[in-house]
């Protein structure tokens, strides 16, 4: 197993109000060698915080408070600063969600790629140069342009340059955090295919973080769906899409047209995730879930095996019956009835579900 994340908990503290936000609350998943693993969820659900926790590049107010992140068996959360620095980029590289701002405007792209090499290796100037040229060719940018400054590159070129930079030291794991969000649809598609090819070629594992289910569907072997700091469902991508179990996944699926059915079946999930400052011991999806019952609010449902290698964190799958759930979830009125006509099942205690921002978390 290349990467094992076990019960990871990461918090942000707001120094002025002393309040703590638990952006990631007990998340576990594993990534095998050469595997492509997708992590899907709305912005603010904590998925980028997972990326930053794995690399330990959280902002000053962020802290891993519990759990383990094992890379090749070694717990990264236990490492001192210097050994951790050495793991970065040689073992784990990052393709950031904002290629536009992830390159320093005052240095050439060439300088910035070489900086990554120099932080870890003592290669000759010639060897570094050869490597940069090789990578530029690999990602499809004219190597002549390696001495350009970032502002001289188009958005797509910057994203390719970022990919080139991520590959420079042959990492075991590439974390791609919304790698194409800032691009137009055509570039998105080419970049994704390219990424797929490169990953296959280099044999690196990939953790692909996105809000776009269709991206995961195309690229990933296995997928985890994240909601409000927790995993809702985890399993093979194929079955997550064809036979989802968690009501949130069912709702998400409705919102993306490219998988099944036409645009007319688009249904968005009304409401917003609960604030993560002081989460109640209840299912976090309860306020938006059409299947919510009193028992959903009495305790936070754990992940349970629902099919082969497939788990979901919902307490009512057996009670409602998965077939009924899927049938119901495909209907628009089922979702929109939650807000308009609270009838027993969804009334609950009506905790305010105002939109929330997770400080320092996702901002896509």
């Amino acid at each position: 197993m290349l990467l094992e994340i076990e019960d990871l908990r990461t918090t942000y503290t707001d120094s002025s109000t002393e309040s703590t936000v638990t952006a990631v609350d007990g998340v576990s998943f594993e990534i095998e060698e050469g595997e492509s693993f997708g992590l899907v969820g709305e912005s603010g659900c904590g998925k980028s915080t997972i990326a930053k926790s794995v690399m330990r590049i959280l902002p000053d107010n962020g802290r891993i408070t519990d759990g383990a992140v094992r890379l090749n068996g070694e717990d990264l959360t236990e490492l001192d600063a210097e050994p951790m620095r050495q793991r970065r980029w040689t073992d784990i590289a990052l393709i950031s969600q904002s290629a536009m701002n992830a390159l320093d405007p005052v240095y050439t792209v060439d300088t910035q790629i070489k900086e990554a090499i120099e932080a870890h290796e003592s290669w000759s100037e010639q060897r570094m140069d050869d490597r940069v040229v090789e990578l530029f060719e690999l990602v499809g940018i004219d190597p002549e342009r390696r001495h350009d400054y970032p502002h001289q590159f188009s958005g797509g070129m910057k994203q390719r340059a970022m990919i080139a930079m991520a590959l420079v030291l042959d990492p075991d794991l590439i974390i791609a955090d919304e790698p194409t969000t800032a691009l137009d649809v055509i570039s998105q598609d080419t970049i994704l295919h390219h990424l797929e090819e490169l990953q296959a070629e280099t044999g690196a594992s990939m953790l692909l973080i996105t809000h776009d289910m269709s991206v995961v569907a195309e690229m990933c072997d296995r997928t985890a769906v994240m909601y409000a700091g927790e995993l809702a469902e985890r399993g093979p991508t194929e079955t997550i899409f064809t036979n989802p179990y968690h009501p949130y996944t069912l709702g998400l699926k409705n919102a993306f047209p490219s998988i099944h059915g036409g645009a007319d079946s688009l249904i968005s999930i009304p409401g917003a995730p609960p604030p993560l400052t002081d989460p109640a011991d209840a299912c976090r999806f309860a306020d938006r879930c059409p299947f919510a019952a009193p028992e959903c609010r009495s305790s936070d449902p754990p992940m349970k095996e629902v099919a082969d290698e497939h788990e979901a964190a919902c307490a009512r799958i057996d009670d409602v019956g998965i077939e009924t759930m899927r049938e119901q979830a495909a209907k628009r009125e089922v979702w929109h009835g939650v807000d308009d006509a609270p009838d027993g099942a969804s009334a609950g205690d009506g905790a305010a579900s105002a939109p929330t921002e997770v400080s320092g978390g996702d901002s896509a």
Partner: protein
Amino acid sequence: MGAKGYIARRAAQSVVTIFVVAVLMFVLFRLMPGDPTAVALSPALDESVQQEMARQYGLNQPLHIQFIRYMASVVTLDFGYSFFQNEPVRDILMRRIGNTLLLMGTGLLLAYAFGTSIGALAAWKRGSFDTRVLVSAVLFRSTPVFWLALVLLYVFGFHLEWFPIGHMVDAEATYSGFLDKVFSVDFLHHLVLPVLSTVPFYMAYPLLLMRTTMLRIEGEDFITMAHAKGVRDRDVFAKHAARNSLLPIVTTAPIVVGLAVAGNVLVETIYSWPGVGRTLVQAVLQSDYPLAQAAFLMIAVIVIVGNFVADLLYTVIDPRITYD
């Protein structure tokens, strides 16, 4: 337009600005109270001597002729003779510009070196160090230069007698040339108090600006990215965070140069430093028009050149600049 064209255009703009300032100065000096002829031409003098002097200084000419002669003097850098020191204005100022630049340059250099590095460190380290720096900077910023100059003069000059109370060098010392003088212990000894009077005030601005900019830059994605790349902390600090924070420092440098020019006039006067600022104050007090005009113009030129240099520097440190 390329970088060369841009530089040429900025240079041309600077020259035009200098001329505008020269014209304004002519007008202002004619509006000032105090009749120059009354001062320069003592009524005690013989009538014919008075007229001869008025002719020599061009004071009997109509205004437009005076203006043309004045502008000609600006172009040829020949500002005529001082009313009081029987010597060409140009020679007087040429002797003193070096002294002024030396004092101001040392002050600004130290202010920027300390201001930017302390500001950057405060933002990087945060916590109690940052708070102490912030409080000191605000204190410095509200301490008038002339006040600090007087306090230092009193405490370390008069009272403790650690440093001389004025002038650039010992009255008895002789030096073979400017450089010889500048690199003497004697000169450095004289330089300490005047420079110390200005540095805290000059450095407050770059310090506070550097700190604020750093705090903003630290939140940028490329800083997170540099950390992710495994770049060592001190390199992330110096090569990325501080390097990018320098951009506004350079763009605002002309403001500080402006402050420094004003501060220098005060410090030169208090420490009897033989510079352009002190010459200006004396010339104005004595209604020595040719000298005062030229000294004013020279100070304006220092500010304008400071602006120009900051612009040049900016083209060097920000690759994104476009020349149009």
